[in-house]
């Protein structure tokens, strides 16, 4: 399965809905999308990963890169994920401390800390 990406705006947040597999082959597409959003002035991103079937370290690297970019503009990057097998990868790499991870898009959009 390939990677699918779609974006929409809710208030000042941009939701990036990701589906499929994020790996060494598809991660560059996600990177391009995040870079483009930041270049266009979207600094508060919510990456909805509920449709993601597979995530590897290349994908993690892209998300960390995205976080770095939005932070340079005092922005935020929040994740939405309820899937245990994906959450496990964030835990073993210690990235649960780096990313705010929410259970729903609504929760992520409402979050302000």
């Amino acid at each position, binding site marked *: 399965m390939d990677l699918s990406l779609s974006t929409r705006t809710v208030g000042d947040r941009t939701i990036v809905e990701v589906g499929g*597999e994020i*790996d*060494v*082959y598809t991660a560059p597409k996600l990177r391009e999308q995040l870079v483009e959003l930041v270049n266009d002035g979207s600094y508060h991103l919510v990456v909805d990963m509920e449709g993601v079937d*597979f995530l*590897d*370290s*290349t994908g*993690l*690297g892209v998300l960390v890169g995205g976080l770095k970019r939005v932070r340079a503009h005092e922005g935020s990057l929040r994740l939405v994920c309820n899937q245990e*097998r994906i959450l496990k*990868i964030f835990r*073993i*790499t210690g990235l649960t401390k780096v990313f705010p991870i929410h259970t729903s898009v609504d929760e992520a959009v409402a979050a302000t800390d």
Partner: protein
Amino acid sequence: MPTVELLFSAQPEHVRTARLVAAQVARRAGVDEAALDEVRLAVGEACSRAVGLHRNNGVQEPVRVLLNEEEKKFSVEVVDEVPGNATGSAPDGGDDAAADDEGEMGLAVISGLVDDVEVIEGETGGTIRMSWPTVAV
């Protein structure tokens, strides 16, 4: 002779094939269903790292994946043809530090996931060897 041996040209698009094949052979060998996600992820990480090493060093040889059904365990070896990289870094440090970091992160994921893992440095390149217990099928 391994149960299944896979050779693929060092292109990112083939990593998915490698991890799917590995997961399927693991399932047949009797690896617990709950561990198949780990097999898929760990083999994907090892293959991504090997692909990165080959590409960054201009190595034309394919990446080799050996899948072995053994007594009470299923083992995987992912073999690259770039010597001097057991720690995950490209030898010249390169102009591609990001790819280096990804290799390191890949190894971190593997060691976090797999209990039995070994990184072996050989004369012609490195091998990441991993195994999972199997149950009788």
